[in-house]
């Protein structure tokens, strides 16, 4: 194996390995990088804990209650809406990629699908699920 072969391998698609293997590698390397930075910082940084310093930030006042309290229902509502419309987007991706092959049939079919979802969208609008005031 000479140098040209290595340089050649650098600027072409992978021929032997699965193209997903580099993704696996980068996940490992990114996690290793994050871990090693944290460990290195752990070794060289000072550590002087203090009850005042370690209390949750509340503009200098002693913290009043637990922070895990109730919060607005709108966040749950938004979660449901997200689920609905993100699944819709999921269906649109393969359709968009194969649009030319599907032709008029695919176009009408998907417009029907979107129209049905738009009914749900306007229902949510009418019910006030999109108001944040």
């Amino acid at each position, binding site marked *: 194996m000479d140098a040209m*072969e*290595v340089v050649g*391998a650098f*600027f*072409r698609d*992978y021929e*032997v*390995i699965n*193209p*997903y*293997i*580099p*993704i696996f*590698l*980068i*996940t490992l*390397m*990114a*996690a290793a*990088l*994050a*871990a090693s*930075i*944290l460990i*290195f*910082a752990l070794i060289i*940084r*000072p*550590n*002087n804990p203090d009850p005042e310093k*370690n*209390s*949750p*930030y*509340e*503009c200098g006042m002693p*913290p009043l209650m637990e*922070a*895990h*309290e109730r*919060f607005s229902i*709108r*966040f749950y509502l*938004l979660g449901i809406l*997200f689920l609905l*419309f*993100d699944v819709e*987007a999921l269906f*649109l*991706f393969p359709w*968009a*990629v*194969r*649009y*030319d092959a599907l032709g*008029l049939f695919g176009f009408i079919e998907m*417009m029907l699908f979107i129209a049905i979802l*738009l009914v749900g*969208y306007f229902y949510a609008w009418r019910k006030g699920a*999109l108001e944040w005031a």
Partner: protein
Amino acid sequence: MDMALEVAVAAIKIFIVVNVVQLVVAYMIYVERKVIAHAQLRLGPMRVGWHGLLQPIADGLKLFLKEDIVPDKADRIVFVLAPVMVLVPALVVYAVLPFSATFYITQINIGLFFVLAISSLGVFGVVMAGWASNSKYSLLGALRSAAQMLSYEIFLGFSVIGPLMLAGSLNLQEIVHAQRDVWFVFYQPVAFIVFFVAALAETNRAPFDLPEAETELVAGFHTEYSGMKFAFFFLAEYASMMVISTIGIVLFFGGWEGPDFIPLPGFVWYCLKLGAFMFVFIWLRATLPRYRYDQLMRVGWKFMFPLVMLNIFLTGFLKYLFL
């Protein structure tokens, strides 16, 4: 033997890309400070090195040496995992981005889908950070951030459908090749506007930086973070800004390909376009005031959503008629 060679090549490429990304991020923070300073008729960092050029190194060193406070009431394991959970997906996405005709870590046939899927994992880290800190500001900031990122992820997903219909492929390299003659921004201006606004909201940038709103939420979900963990959030934010800009360049501005009459290498074109995108991001932060939360949601759900649906319909209709 060939297999070992290719794995080694992949590892080298990943090493280069991950390190260059970190370096570029460090200098982007410097450029941002400089640009905003000059927008406000200040000088910005000037002390460390010539015109403050060594400032990012000094900042990095400071963050390394800074005490890392874990609040007593915090959930320690989740608290430490959260910044990692934000940073790792932001870096993993670089695996499929095309930097030039021949330089990329890997190309897969669902490239764009992979980018959208992995980059949206960052929201888990944000929610983990906000919940684990056990601070009211963090929790509220994390909830705001999650709601904003989820909403705008939908519009981001819908806005890329138009260019996808034109390109007919999810492979980022093939999308670039499909724009050899005309950039898709000329065919899909509406999709680009929606994409850009959604990109700003996704990366929590001004004018949509409500999750971090310094003046009301004291930095939002990372209020309790300090030292290197805080730096991770910063790194991840800028790394995902670069990812989203690259996706914008690939989908709408011809990727690493430039006009034929200016013979520059593909990588130079990519860097120029990326620089332009980054400059607009910073420019907007220097110019626009912050949105109110209900305005943000209203613009998203009541204006952008119908707009992007209309765009999909028109693209499909016109493409059926003329192409």
